């Protein structure tokens, strides 16, 4: 059984997000293998949702393509369990509350444990609504990942204190997607987190270039990249995995 925290044992962590089934699960599988072989420390498996309200246009597009291609929660769990035989780095699922609620949180977390998925990220479940899901996650050894945003201010402390796995630090306001500049004072947010927990923190939202990754990794324990990877899938389709491998290598090299 892998642990989310294992992702942070290999220096600064590089976390890759991929929407499962965009354009098909076979391509997703090869993309994940390439990412893992080229230095990714954790894979966020995106289960697509019809109305991904926290996503920018790039990841929204991946969600629509994947659903149009016919993936379902069950197909993704079957896929993840087969992929486990080839890839050993930790997996976390990233999806929306209704996907888990509709499947049944209990059954969802049980399947996570069966597939050795050790983390769950739900961007529409803030601290106030966390218990409903976390009580079930804990039962099955799945870390429900807490998010902290630039607007969290006095909430940082209480969120950090109850966090497990890692803390997802949202770099900027708005939705997911590449940004030219990140102006949030990440360092002071991380300082407050460090005073309240030893759980590692990774920064996501808007990171696409090795320079940005290096800069963010200096302030935190890892970086999360989604849209830049999805863009390669959007551009190269089934041929994307090798490009994703090259990209992940460049990003991981930049933060080593």
């Amino acid at each position, binding site marked *: 059984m892998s642990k989310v925290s294992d992702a942070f044992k290999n220096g600064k962590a590089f976390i890759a997000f991929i929407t499962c089934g965009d354009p098909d699960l076979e391509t997703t599988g090869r993309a994940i293998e390439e990412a893992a072989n080229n230095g990714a420390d954790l894979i966020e498996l995106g289960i697509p949702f019809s109305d991904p309200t926290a996503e920018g246009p790039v990841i*929204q597009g991946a969600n629509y393509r994947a659903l149009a291609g016919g993936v379902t929660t069950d197909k993704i769990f079957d896929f993840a369990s087969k992929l486990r035989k080839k890839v050993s780095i930790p997996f976390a699922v990233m999806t929306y509350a209704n996907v888990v609620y509709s499947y049944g949180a209990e059954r969802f977390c049980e399947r996570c444990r069966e597939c050795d998925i050790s983390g769950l990220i739900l961007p529409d479940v803030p601290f106030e609504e966390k218990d409903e899901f976390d009580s079930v996650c804990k039962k099955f050894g799945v870390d429900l990942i807490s998010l902290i945003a630039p607007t969290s201010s006095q909430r940082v402390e209480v969120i950090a204190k109850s966090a497990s796995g890692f803390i997802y630090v*949202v770099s900027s306001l708005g939705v997911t997607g590449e940004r030219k500049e990140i102006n949030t004072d990440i360092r002071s947010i991380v300082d407050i987190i460090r005073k309240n927990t030893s759980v590692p923190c990774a920064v996501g939202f808007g990171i696409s270039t090795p320079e940005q990754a290096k800069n963010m990794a200096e302030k935190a324990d890892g970086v999360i990249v989604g849209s830049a990877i999805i863009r390669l899938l959007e551009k190269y389709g089934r041929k994307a995995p090798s490009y994703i491998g090259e990209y992940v290598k460049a990003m991981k090299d930049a933060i080593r």
Partner: protein
Amino acid sequence: MSNRNGRFGPYGGQYIPETLMNAVIELERAYNHYKGDPAFNEELTKLFNEYAGRPSLLYYAKKMTKDLGGAKIYLKREDLNHTGSHKINNVLGQALLAKKMGKTRLIAETGAGQHGVATATAAALLNMECVIFMGEEDTKRQALNVYRMKLLGAEVHPVKTGTATLKDAVSEAMREWTKRIADTHYCLGSVMGPHPFPTIVRDFQSVISKEIKQQILSVEGRLPDAVVACVGGGSNAIGSFYNFINDSSVRLIGCEAAGRGIDTFETAATINTGRSGIFHGMKSYFCQDSYGQIAPVYSISAGLDYPGVGPEHAYLHDIGRAEYVAITDEEAVNAFEYLSRTEGIIPAIESAHAVAYAMKEAKNMSKDKIMVITVSGRGDKDCASIARYRGEDINE
């Protein structure tokens, strides 16, 4: 009826990104402060009475009563409000609150365009910037309202993602709010979304049932036997029900849009066909597939074309306090034409869903019974699409 974190039984809550949490907490604090503030309420009442034209009439529909041959029918005329619907009640309240909070910009979603027009109106009146998100499909169905919003100084942003209708407009308005929070208030148009919106919007809309109660007591000397309103997100319905919830003798009936029928996939009747889920900030009933993917819904009415319903309605349904019935496009269009010819009142196609139920139910009630139907809006905006439905093409 709502407790901490805005729960109505198991429904409601705050299922939103962390980025927005402080914004809704700030809103809740401001609302709790101002709702009991005499100066705020005086200012709002003044706007209601002198700007929006409240109180709205409670009209005895004599011809309709006689024709249907059963219960005595009264129409609550929200269609006579400034901007042509009940939406102005909530918008004036929220815009005033936003102004007190120091916000300078309003954003809102709209389906039929009624809420967008009301928000653009309040923004013009209170000197605020205004951006409206509207599904691209709806901008085509309701071109006149798009023009009205622009005329009022608002920017209209057509939403092309997903099904390009109301739910996508809500998603896009939520995304915009996460981008720009400091100066912006999201003026949500229905009793939905994360707490405190379902409570705030209900409170501002509850003026409808407050007036109905006073008016019916003064003309009939007793409470009505039934109150009927259409339900999309459910703001005019909760506004019409709220002050009667504790009067158990009053039946509360919400009319959902069945579209082409609740046995088809082309429906928007959430309580009749959906199940419990979490979406757009709340736990409630939603039309969805077996994996929780939100279903594309359909109704002839752009204002009821939404896959969810407000959490308080979900609760009122579960505890059996309110009934939720489904009305098809065909029944609603018949009612649209019926009320126009019988009483000389052209209702919004949304409101026509409530009229349609009354047409079926009134005759089952004896002549000493009283039924109040809320006419949530006027139907000028719908004339072109109803003409099209009947095979007649007219230029708007």
